[in-house]
């Protein structure tokens, strides 16, 4: 099982990164299954057990609202991300439930061409392995730095 889980999670990670980097944000909520939790926080808040997130969503509806707000309501300059993901580590397996940690680096590309490392950090994920695929139940994005440049519009 272990080897397969790693393979399934790697595929799910790749699909997730491509979804955001290809600007297919409308599909992003559908990458979450079952009880949904998506949270962006910082390493120091995570270490200290502080509850609030930079983004906090505990329903797929809240993810959908993030996307529609970005498309229709919020004001920000056009930008895109390039996710570079490291290798997932399996933290625990309990039946079909698998917890993993995956390091990431995200470059932000602004419309004037300015490209910079925008965030580095780790995904703490809970997956459920169903029919040979890893379905994402929960994702806590823990950014290494507590500084966010200007604003955080696109999901990490």
């Amino acid at each position, binding site marked *: 099982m272990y080897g397969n889980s790693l393979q399934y999670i790697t595929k799910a990670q790749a699909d997730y990164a491509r979804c955001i980097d290809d600007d297919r944000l409308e599909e992003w909520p559908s990458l979450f299954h079952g009880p949904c939790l998506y949270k*962006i*926080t*910082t390493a*120091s*808040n995570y270490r200290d057990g*502080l*509850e*609030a*997130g*930079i*983004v*906090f*969503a*505990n*329903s797929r*509806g*809240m993810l*959908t*609202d993030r996307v*529609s*707000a970005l498309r*229709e*309501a*919020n*004001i*920000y*300059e056009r930008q895109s991300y390039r996710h570079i993901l490291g290798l997932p580590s399996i933290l625990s397996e309990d039946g079909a439930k698998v917890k993993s940690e995956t390091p990431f680096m995200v470059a932000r590309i*602004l419309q004037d061409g*300015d490209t*910079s490392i925008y965030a580095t950090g780790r995904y703490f994920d809970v997956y459920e392995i169903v029919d040979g695929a890893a379905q994402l139940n929960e994702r806590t994005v823990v950014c290494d730095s*507590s*500084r*966010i*440049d*200007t*604003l*955080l*519009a696109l999901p990490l």
Partner: protein
Amino acid sequence: MNKIVLPPEDARPLNWPEGLTRVPYWVFQDQSVYAEEQRKIFQGPNWHYLALEVELAEPGDFLTTHIGDTPVIVTRDTDNEIYAFENRCAHRGALICLENRGKHRKDFSCVYHAWNYDPQGNLTGVAFKDGIKGKGGMPDSFKMEQHGPRKLRIAIVHGLIFGSFSEDVPSIEEYLGEEILNRIERVLGGRKAVVLGRFTQALPNNWKLYMENVKDSYHASILHLFFTTFELNRLSMKGGIIVDESGGHHVSYSAIDPEAAKDVDYAKQQLRSESEYKLADPTLLESFDEYHDGCTLQILSVFPTFVLQQIQNAIAVRQIVPRAVDRTDLNWTYLGFADDTPEQRLTRIKQGNLVGPAGYISMEDGCVGGFVQRGIAGASEDQAVLEMGGAEANSSESRVTEASVRGFWKAYRANMGI
């Protein structure tokens, strides 16, 4: 990312345009103005937010922060009092403390030459002070009590710790005035705050552009579609602006008004805020009645760089730290209270989505200052127009006014002598 061209030194006219309705753009661009602000405002007779008392709950707790450019250590000593002093060794100027925060600290030692300080900022030890084997060491004339980092005056208001380098600053009660004090008490008074999260938003603009934005009730329901669409804050809602006598402190507040939902003023303006936008999960905006006065929004600022926010049940303090003429750090601390129920805590965390770097409302405040900073590049002899709601800096029931922005400049100019 947002490089600006600084004006030549001689581009700054000697005089500010008359009245409060014009702000010359050089004030956001000029390096010498930035340096003067450090001296006259941040080292001057003002109170500056340092930390929350709850962050220094026990003796030995400490944290580091900034007043303007100056690094500062804040401590709680064994006498249970709060102290603050410059985070700068009296010897050669190195940072004394490199950590953001910590506990159980009995002393602070500079890593460079191990000069040692107690939690009140007194120099208590100089390594090899008497030399080795009778040779070297400090001269007899060197007295430790004559050397030490500068200490700050401290004032605590409803759990907010303020500090000042100035001996001339009035008492915090006098500085804030009764109306502002009452409005701080309304949010924080008699309750034990709990920190829910801390984040820093790096703003690509001069610090004053963020303070203008905070005080600008005119933009709130135009730039921020969220506010308006969900009737969190319409200018036609009941509310008002309080500007204190100095001009430097302000409160903007509003209350839910069922009649406002029916008004046609917004439709007439053809603003973006009249969209069909709806939330798929409206629980984001479900609130509990925390203050029993109908006020769903209260933004309060204290000159020069402190903000206390109540947006529904999202309570936060914001500390603005200038980093360079075109760079500013905005430190967010999200708050709950010790007596929150789990449901109330969840409500605050959900409404945290409204504010901060990814806030449905606040993300825009994070970029709009940069739009101005870039927009005024090359226009240092031009000036902004602040005529909404007249030319004065007075309290009013209307929030279609720039009165509190004009108030900021009134206080700024009084501080700067311009």
